[in-house]
């Protein structure tokens, strides 16, 4: 019985791993955390999976209209990156930029450390609210990254969880 459950768990975990690896295009994931107060902090990580060039910039396309961001908002960037907040009425986007090519996001790499505080409840996000655009390092042009995806636990974490879950199942029986 134990072996059967373990094999099933390994199969499920492997399928999840393949599902995650299948996202072989650049994308951004986000993890919303409640706070401070009634606000929400959104943590972003950009994955330059199978990208055609390093990424030198990142734009939260609907920064003002979807997240109410402006020049008073609390916005944080990774080391050696900066940001220009949305300008309501003129520019809707929150733009992050890398000061130097050495801090760009290389192909098949990822970079976290982007965050902003917003009054928007993540549960109310719809459609293309969380549309993201990258800036390529080679041609300095925009690269559509689609909608940011909600953060899921890493495959390695699932692998670590699997034996524990298997033990739990075994003990219950």
């Amino acid at each position, binding site marked *: 019985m134990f072996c059967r459950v373990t094999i099933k768990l390994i199969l499920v975990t492997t399928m999840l791993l393949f599902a995650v690896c299948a996202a072989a295009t650049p994308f951004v994931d986000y993890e919303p955390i409640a706070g401070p107060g009634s606000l929400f902090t959104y943590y972003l990580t950009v994955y330059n999976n199978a990208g055609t060039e390093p990424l030198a910039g990142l734009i939260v396309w609907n920064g003002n209209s979807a997240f109410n961001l402006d020049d008073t908002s609390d916005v944080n960037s990774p080391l050696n990156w900066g940001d220009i907040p949305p300008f309501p*009425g003129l520019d809707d986007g929150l*733009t992050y930029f890398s000061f130097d090519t050495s801090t760009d996001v290389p192909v098949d790499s990822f970079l976290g450390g982007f965050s902003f505080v917003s009054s928007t409840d993540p549960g109310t996000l719809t459609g293309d609210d969380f549309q993201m655009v990258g800036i390529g390092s080679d041609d300095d042009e925009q690269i559509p990254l689609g909608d940011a995806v909600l953060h899921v636990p890493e495959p390695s974490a699932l692998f670590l969880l699997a034996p524990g879950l298997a033990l739990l199942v075994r003990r219950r029986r």
Partner: protein
Amino acid sequence: VRVTFFLGGKFLENPPVDDAVSSVVFALSGQAQVTSSTSSSTTYTWVNTGGSMSAFDFRTRNSIASVQVTSLTAIVFSGGDLQISGTGLGMVNGSAQSVLFNFNQTGGVTRYSIQNMSTLTTLAAGVGESGRAGISLSVNP
């Protein structure tokens, strides 16, 4: 008169040939004098300046921040076009530099350029991307 000026958004180097991106935010509000007025245009010169300007050009990797405007002139044309030019002192890639800047709107198209005042090297420049950049100037007595 009190004149308020905003420019901001995402700009492209030379569309559609070269769509290299730059971002700019510039806001300024202050007292200005009418220094010239004709049937086709009115020129305003700021008598007290301040404001703030930030820009980043992905092609040049120049970051222009904390610009304190030291002079500014705006020409408002009767057809709605704008020509704004001035000087300022700001941080360019972390070092203090004097800059020249020009912003204009002609036929609904917004353009800007920021140059090093000593060398006239272009630090950042672009043409406003449709729907993502703009310029506005309002005058109140």
